[in-house]
């Protein structure tokens, strides 16, 4: 055993030959949304600092932050990413308690967080548009 060649083993997982499935996608999405939310930190800080700088500065900065079509897409994306990352995190907390680890339940949880985060993002975005 001590002399076994350990440098030439196959690596896992083989992403190229795996069939894409919901657990894999929902896991990767947690990392993508988490990194993407760095943009969210910067934009929320921008908004807070603009508000702290007074009414005129706030109005001027809001033209950049919310005043054009791309802003709507970015804010919706961020709200969705935050919802998704949160639901994904809650799923991991559940899994840490060794609950819901069988394949059927896990796949259901995967779809639940994808669909649930979409619904949550739409509701929160509507509230943002009302105010």
């Amino acid at each position: 055993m001590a002399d076994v060649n350990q440098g030439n083993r196959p690596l896992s997982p083989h992403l190229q030959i795996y069939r894409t499935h919901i657990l894999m996608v929902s896991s990767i999405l947690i990392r993508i949304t988490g990194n993407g939310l760095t943009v969210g930190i910067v934009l929320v800080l921008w908004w807070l600092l603009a508000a702290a700088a007074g009414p005129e500065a706030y109005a001027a900065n809001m033209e950049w932050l919310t005043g054009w079509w791309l802003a709507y897409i970015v804010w919706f994306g961020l709200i969705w990413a935050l919802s998704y990352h949160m639901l994904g995190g809650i799923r991991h907390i559940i899994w840490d308690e060794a609950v819901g680890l069988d394949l059927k339940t896990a796949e259901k949880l995967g779809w639940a967080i994808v669909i649930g985060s979409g619904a949550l993002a739409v509701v929160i975005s509507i509230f943002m548009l009302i105010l």
Partner: protein
Amino acid sequence: MHYITDRKRAAGKGSLAHGADHQLQVTYSSYMMAILVVLFLIRIAPLIGAPYEVVLAGLTSPFNTVICGLFIVSTTYHWRFNIKKVFEDYVPKGWDFAGMIITTALGWFFCGLGLYSLVKLMIIKAMIIVLAL
């Protein structure tokens, strides 16, 4: 290499270095994040893009100020911790150390900026009240 036993080769290669501790720290902070994100989405997020008066009133109400302050501190902490994992996974050894120095500094910087904004907003609110008297 030929003379190293399996026991010796395995020593120090487990979760000893950082893995288990990192996992636990992230789990602890994610419980707090789960609560704070819900409160942020309900109380603070709808204010983004609202008129100035609405934002000033919304962010300086005691409950919202505390929620927003806690959210800023907790988020930058959680962010620092998890960006570390990204550096370890995707950035060559050596560069991840440099990346973590920058990330740690940026995390505290963001945290400071956010808390500063909240304090400044409360001062603006207080001045408006005083001037109205």
